Structure formats: structure tokens, C-alpha cells
């Protein structure tokens, strides 16, 4: 029974990890950049949703859509910076995104201050009971939003022209350009989409998490493990990776001290890299 509860909890939070990770893997897939600053956009998304709640009274689940839009626009605007990053050698790329991490985090600290902020929603302390199992309502709500966003993303990449063009750019930028696709435009959109999705993911966890300029660092490990598990650049892989990370985290608490849950994740991470560097599902690069 404890096993089923753990799997259930793991899947629900895993859905959120999946949304956050899709953003990171999208950015890599289309642009080839491992964005170390990705978690900072999560923090920004949480702040947007928090302020929407504090000043507009919007529930964070609705506010998350606002987060997506705002951060997506901010991502679009980064065009020049992103193009410069892409042209740099991989070594420089790593440090550019790290520099971006430092800048965003400290800008947030200057702008918003250091205190931890939390929202209060009506469903924060409720849960559903299915037999002997507990289903936390904030988790369930976040999971549903995650599923919805995943569906929306699928519609976009599969059915819309932009989505298909993005996939073409990810597969083979040269061929895409030859087919008349504005590759830079696609990369711009991909970046915006990527950071927007991660921001969305941050906003939907706001009901049970507090926001503070340093909150990004708590999700970095999870995000990167999920993405690597699924294969850098593979969106479906990120979903599976995110769910897997949630379940691993949850199940490891049954066997090991909770203090070591990150350790287990790291070992899984290294193990996957060692045995299947392109991820369990396979990578696009």
C-alpha cells in the first residue's frame, strides 16, 4: 500500500517535473545550448504568478498561463543574446548561461527582496481520498495543468506549421533553411517556448511552494536528471524522464533515508550517462 501511495505521489509531482524539463530539452533540441540558467526562468514564472495572485487575485493555476506569456515574451526578446551564445564554442556557452543565471538571480534579489513568499489558496490543505490512498489536491491540480500544457504543446508541434518548422530546424538546420524556414526565427520561438514552459511549471507549483530569488537551485538537479534520462532534445523523453524522476524520488524514500534522495537521483543520473549516454528514450543529437 505504501508502495502504491509512493508511486501515485511520484507520478503527480513527476508531471510537474516533466513540464519544467520539457522547456530545458526544447532549448537544447532546437538550439544546442544546455541552458544552465533555465531554473531561473522557473523562479521568474513563480514570481509572476505570485504577483498576479497578490495584486490581481488570480489563482496561481490561472496565473500560470500569464507566467507562460510573460516569460515567453522575455525569451523572444533575448534573440541577440541567444544568437551570440549559439555562435560561441561549447565551453563559452556553458559560462554564458551560468553568467545569465547569476544575473537573473541577483536582479530578482534586488527587485523583489530576499523574503520567502507564499500564496494561500482554498485547496492548499485539502486532499481526496480514494480508498486508503490520499491524493493531494494541489498536486492533482498541478498535474492536470501539466497534462493540459503537454497536450497543447503536442498540438503545436504536431499540427501547426510553426511547430513542424521547429522540429525541422531541430532535426537539420541546414535542410530547414534550404526549405525556406527562417531558422533564426524558429530558434527564437523555441527559446521563448522553452523558458515559458519552465516558468509555467514553476507557477503551477506555487500553491505548495514558496518563492524566493534562490528557489531555482532546488529544481536544477531534478530538471537535468529528467532531461538526461529522456535524452537531451527529446520532448517525449523529457516527459518520461520527469515522471521517472518523480517516482524514483518517491520510491527511494521507502528504501533509503529521505536525506539521500538526491544522492539516489545523482547515481541514477551518472548510471544512465554511463550506460546509455543518449538517454533511455534516445536523443535527437
Amino acid at each position: 500500500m505504501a508502495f502504491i501511495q509512493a508511486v501515485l505521489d511520484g507520478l503527480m509531482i513527476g508531471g510537474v517535473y516533466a513540464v519544467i524539463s520539457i522547456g530545458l530539452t526544447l532549448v537544447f533540441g532546437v538550439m544546442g545550448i544546455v541552458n544552465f540558467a533555465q531554473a531561473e526562468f522557473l523562479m521568474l514564472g513563480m514570481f509572476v504568478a505570485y504577483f498576479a495572485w497578490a495584486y490581481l487575485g488570480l489563482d496561481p493555476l490561472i496565473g500560470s498561463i500569464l507566467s507562460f506569456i510573460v516569460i515567453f515574451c522575455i525569451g523572444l526578446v533575448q534573440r541577440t543574446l541567444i544568437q551570440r551564445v549559439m555562435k560561441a564554442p561549447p565551453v563559452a556557452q556553458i559560462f554564458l548561461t551560468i553568467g545569465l543565471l547569476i544575473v537573473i538571480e541577483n536582479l530578482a534579489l534586488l527587485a523583489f527582496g530576499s523574503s520567502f513568499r507564499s500564496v494561500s489558496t482554498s485547496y492548499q490543505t485539502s486532499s481526496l481520498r480514494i480508498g486508503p490512498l490520499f491524493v493531494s489536491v494541489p498536486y492533482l491540480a498541478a498535474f492536470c495543468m501539466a497534462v493540459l500544457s503537454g497536450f497543447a504543446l503536442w498540438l503545436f508541434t504536431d499540427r501547426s506549421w510553426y511547430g513542424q518548422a521547429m522540429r525541422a530546424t531541430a532535426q537539420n538546420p541546414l535542410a530547414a533553411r534550404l526549405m525556406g524556414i527562417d531558422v533564426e526565427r524558429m530558434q527564437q520561438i523555441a527559446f521563448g517556448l522553452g523558458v515559458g514552459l519552465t516558468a509555467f511549471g514553476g507557477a503551477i507549483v506555487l500553491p505548495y511552494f514558496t518563492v524566493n530569488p534562490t528557489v531555482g537551485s532546488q529544481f536544477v538537479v531534478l530538471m537535468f536528471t529528467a532531461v538526461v534520462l529522456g535524452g537531451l532534445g527529446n520532448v517525449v523523453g523529457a516527459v518520461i524522464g520527469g515522471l521517472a524522476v518523480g517516482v524514483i524520488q518517491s520510491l527511494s524514500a521507502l528504501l533509503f533515508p529521505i536525506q539521500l534522495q538526491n544522492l539516489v537521483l545523482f547515481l541514477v543520473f551518472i548510471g544512465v550517462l554511463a550506460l546509455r549516454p543518449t538517454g533511455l528514450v534516445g536523443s535527437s543529437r
Partner: protein
Amino acid sequence: MTKAVTPHVRGVFATRRRVLALGAAGLAMPFVRRASAKGAPVNVGVILPLSGANAQFGVNSRNGIELVAEQINARGGIKALEGAPINLVIADATSTPTTAATVGQRLITQNNVVAILGAYASSLTLALSEVTERRDIPLMTMSFSDQITGRGFKNIFQIIAKASVLGAAQLDGTVAIAKSAGQTLERIAIMYEDTAYGVSQAKGLRDAAGKLGIKVVMDEAYPLGITDVTPLINKLRGANAQAVFPASYLNDGLQIIRSMRQQSIAMPIIGGAGGYVIPDFRKALGEYAENVLSIAPGNYDLAPQLTDAFRKKYGYFMVHEALEHAVCLDVLAQALEIAKAADPAAVRKAMSEAEFKGGWCDAMPGGVVKFDQTGLNTHAVPMMVQWRGEDLVTVWPDQLAKAKPVWSAA
């Protein structure tokens, strides 16, 4: 002709006059120097984490120190030093112990600080204290890791009780409160975040439980940045405890309490200070914060006549780290009055020998501060506080309590 001569003559006159003037000035120098030394500001170093994860607490602490500095300067500075004002030299310790130590070195060398207050987090304070001890500069702190006063250092002064004492008091106080409500505690659950704060507090609790013969049915550490507490709460649910003792900061503390409510786990919650005693806790939980107990090294309701000034100035009640740092500065000012010199060695001597009363010491238990040879304030006694509405009320021990404790299953 005249032109060529006069400037020379004037120059000579000027020179001679200048020499006479300089000579007179030279003779007057000692008198002049003493006159300008009247009220030469006393530099006090303040090293706190102003960026990174502990920034909020660093800022609170700084606010407390600034309040007291203003008060001291407003009433005329340090009388024994001819009204010398306190000049705070504030620096960011960041979250890296090496930086805290380097910053300490800088303040000592460049700013000639007479003492340093800092650095909130035990790891920062430990690193900083290695510098201050070797440079013979007094360091005053409210960090409470047992290690701080356990190294035989002569220049460290810790204003509150140490972690093991806090942990033990957390249990003793709870047992007392439970007994007065008619319940005997036999089985408790301990959960704690895995940095120095949580680990040391939990150890104090564990050892105290062993001494009292109370069974610890759950004893789990969790990573500070935990994103999902359900495994923790699932374990709690199956542990059959009568009360739970979480040592958490705000983010994890809120998750724990909310998850407990989701699963309708009703038992008294006794926090380990940290995130349980700050205004944000109450703001976030609203009515669910009511009657949550916590241990605290200090509380503002011991001296509202002093701490209300903080609330008026900054808009929130005086959190314990702000209070304790405020007391540190007041004690330093009193030590300066006793030492009669802005000299670190004299200040150190005064601090280790004198008994400090009055002023902000009224906000400490017993109204007295006295340091023993290890640097601990022997009069510091932890207290149990409880949330009543938007305020934290001291409920134990009886000599400090402002209200009767409520023992309720949350």
C-alpha cells in the same frame, strides 16, 4: 626691479610666516589631536549574509543592529569616549564561508573595527571566527552550533544558548506543557532539514529524549531544498507519534504543515525556531498557524517597550535574530563604556568579565548577559513560544511566560 624683488620678499615673508604658523601648529598638535579625537567614531564591523538563501535573515539582523546604533548615537554616543558615535561597517558575508573570512580580514585591516557582529549562519561564523581569533578582535554572534564555543577561543561571544541546549529545551518545554494539559509524552517524531541548524537541533532533541526515556518513533533528515514532502508525511502517518518536532526553514516548514493538514494528521507541532518563528509563517498559513508551538532563543514580547520601536520602524515584529543582534550591539556599547577605549583588547576584557544589565539586555531572559570562559552567555535560556493570532507569545518557562500554553492537536 620691484617686481622681481617683491615676490621674493613676499615669498620669504610668506615662508617665514608659514614656518611660524606651522611651528605654532606643531606645538598645538597634541592639543588639537585630542580635540579632534573627541567623538572619533567607533567602527563596528557587521558581517551578515546579505545575498543568497539566508539573505532575509541577514537583512533582519542588520535592521536590528541599525536600530540600536541609531538609538545609541541619538542619545550622544559612547560617553566614556567623549560622545563617540557608533559607525557601522556593513559587509556581505555571501553564502561562502571563505568569503565571510576574507571580508572579516578586510574589515579588521582596512576599517580598524573594534569588534565584529555576525554572521548568522554557523558555518559563516565558524570561518569568520578563525580570523577574528587570530587577529584578537572580539566576535559577537547569535549562531548556536555547539562548535562555536567548543574550541577554547577567547574572542568569541555567543549571546544565546547552544544548539544542544535548544534541542533539549524544545523537548523539556513540550513535556512540561503536555503534562500541564494532562498528557504524558511517550512517542515523538523528529524531522529536520540537513544543514548545521537542523542536524544540531535534532541531536539535542534526540539526546534529551533518550534521557527522559521517550521513544523517538520517527527520526528523518531531509534535504533543505526538498520539493516534495509527501514521503516524509507518509512516514509520519505510519509512525504513530503523539507529537512532531520539525526543525525547518520556511519553505519546508510550510510544506510540512500543509501536507499534514491535507492528510488530516492531527497532532501538536513543535517547531525548532528557524522558519517557524517569522511573520511569513503566519502570513502564509493564516489560521493554520494558530497554536503552533516552537522553541525560540529569544522573543520580542519579553521587552515590548524596546521591541515595539522595531515594529514601528520596519513594519514587522522584531524577529529573534534581529533582537539578538540588537542586544549584541548594546552589550558592545556597554563594554566600550567600561573599557574607556576603542581598543579591541580592552573591549574583549570588559566583555569577558563584566555583567551586563539594562538597555537592551532587558529583552534577554533574566535581563542579564554574562559570558563564561568559553564565550557562552550563561543567562541565556531558551523559551517556548506559540502563535496567537499574528503574534508570537512566550508560554514557557513560567517565569518568562506571558500567557498560558495551549496544547492542541493541530
